[in-house]
C-alpha cells in the first residue's frame, strides 16, 4: 500500500438504503416480522405492503379513547396522568386505561381487538 501520497481506490462499506421503514408483510404478521429472517427471508421492497392508517375522527366529543401503557418505565404513571387530564379538561371524552400485560416488546392481539370493538381512538405511550 502506497504511503507516498499516491491515490488508491477502496470500496464503500455502507449498505444500500432499502426504503423500508417498519413495514410488514401483512396486517396479521407479528410486529417483529420485519426483523425476523425466519418469517421474512431475504425480503425485498416489492414484497412488502403498508398497513393503512385508520381514518381520523372529526372530533373526540362523546368518543371513547383508549389510553394504552406500553410498559416502559414511567408509562403507567404517565398514562394515568393523561387520563386525569382528560377527566379534568375534556370530561365529554370517555377514556379507558389499559396496560400491556407482558412487555412493550410483545404483541397483544386481544387488546387491539378490544380497542377496535369498543373504542373510537387510541393513544399508546410512552416510549422508553
Amino acid at each position, binding site marked *: 500500500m502506497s*504511503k507516498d501520497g*499516491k491515490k*488508491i481506490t477502496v*470500496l464503500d*462499506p455502507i*449498505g444500500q438504503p*432499502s426504503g423500508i421503514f417498519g413495514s410488514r408483510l401483512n396486517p396479521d404478521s407479528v410486529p417483529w416480522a420485519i426483523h425476523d429472517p425466519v418469517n421474512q427471508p431475504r425480503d425485498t421492497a416489492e414484497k412488502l405492503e403498508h398497513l*393503512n392508517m385508520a381514518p381520523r375522527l372529526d372530533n373526540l366529543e362523546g368518543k371513547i379513547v383508549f389510553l394504552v401503557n406500553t410498559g416502559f418505565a414511567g408509562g403507567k404513571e404517565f398514562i394515568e396522568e393523561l387520563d386525569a387530564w382528560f377527566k379534568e379538561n375534556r370530561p365529554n371524552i370517555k377514556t379507558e386505561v389499559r396496560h400491556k400485560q407482558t412487555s412493550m416488546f410483545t404483541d397483544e392481539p386481544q387488546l387491539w381487538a378490544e380497542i377496535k370493538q369498543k373504542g373510537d381512538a387510541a393513544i399508546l405511550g*410512552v416510549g*422508553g
Partner: protein
Amino acid sequence: MNLRWSFPPYPVGFVSRDTLKEYIRGNDPISGAPLMDEIFFALTQPLTKEEKHPRMVKRPQRPRLVEPDTEENLHRLFLENGWTDGLPIILPTEERVAEMLTGTDHKPDEVVGMMSVTTHEERLQYTVERVAVNAVMAGARPEHLPVLLALGASGRPSLPSSTTSFASMMVVNGPVRDEIGMNYGLGALSPINYANSVIGRAWTLMSINLGDMRPGATFTATTGTTINYNNMCCAENEEASVWEPFHVRKGFKKNESVVSLFRGWNVMTMGLGPSQRMLEVMRSMGGPFGGAFTFLCDPLAAKSLKAEGYDDPAKLSEWLVNELNPRFKRPDAVNFIVVGGETNPMWVTTDFSYFQSSPIDPWIPKAGIKKDPKPLRMPVPVMCKDGSCGIGH
C-alpha cells in the same frame, strides 16, 4: 412511517407525578407545540394524501467505490464518517475485497439480508461484497467470511439501539470452530485469539455500516457498553463439555456449523458453587421483564452441575425457572454454554436472551474453508504443569 407521534419531555420514568402533569400541560420539546394540542391534532386531522397512500421510498444506488484518495486521507475519511469502531482498520481496497470474496462461493452481488440497529427505522440492504468489505476492515481473512455471512444472513445487529445500552454475544458451534482456529478453551473471552477478535469486531462494523448506526439518530445507548467492541465472540468447548453442544440442543446436527446470537445487558463473572447459588445470582440480577439468563460455564462447572443430577441442562433450566418465578415459566429463557479452559469451576452469569442460530455451512465453499497457506494463529495457551514457566508456588 405511517403513525403519528408526539413527544413529551424526557425522562418519563422515575420522575414525580407533578413532573408528569407538567409534561402533559407543556410543550412537545421537539416541535415546540403544546403536547395535548398535538395529540388532538393527530387523532382528528384528516389523513394526508401521503398517509392514505404510502409509497416505498426510492433511494439512489450507493456507489460501489469511494472517491480515490491517499491512504492517509481515506483512513481519516472512514474515521470521520463514523464508518469504524474508532480503532484502526484495514482499508478495503479492491484487491483485498476480491481476496476476501474467495472465502465463499456465493456471488459478490448476492443479497445477504437487511439490517437496522433501530427496529422501526429504514433498513439497509447488503450483498456478499458489502459484508466482505467490512470483513476486510475488521482485519479478517477469507477463512472467517462464512461466519460473517451467517451473521449477515441473521439480519440481527450487534448494536441494537436502546437507551438501555444493549450488549450482544455470539457463540460458534460445530467443525468450523477448529477450521478457523477459534478459541473455546482458556481465555476464550479474552483478547488472545485472532479469529475470536476479528469475527466479533466485524459483527460490530457490519452493524455500524450495514445497520445504519448513527449515534444520537439511530443509536441511543445512554452509556453504551464496551461489550459492543467484540460481542463476547467465542466458541463452545464441545469436546470438554459433559452436555450436548448448544446447537444440538437447538435442533441442529452436531456436525453442522452454526453461530448463535444473544442479547442482554449485564455480565457478572466469577460465579462459583452449585445450582442453588446460580438461583441466588439470578434473583439478584432479575430485570423488569421477567428475566432471561445465559450462563457461560467452564467445563468443570458443567461437570459439577451434572454431578448434582443435571445431566441435561434443560432440567437445570426448568428447576431454576420454577424456583425463580413460576408465573413466567419459560425454561427456554435460561441457557447454558460451556466455555473455558478448566482452570476454575466457575460460571459467568449474563441476563442475555437467546435469539437465533444462523447456519454457517451454506456460506462455506464447496472445496472447504479457504485457508491461507500458513493461517494466522496466535499462540495457543499452554498450561504450565511442571514449573518450567518459572512460576513458583
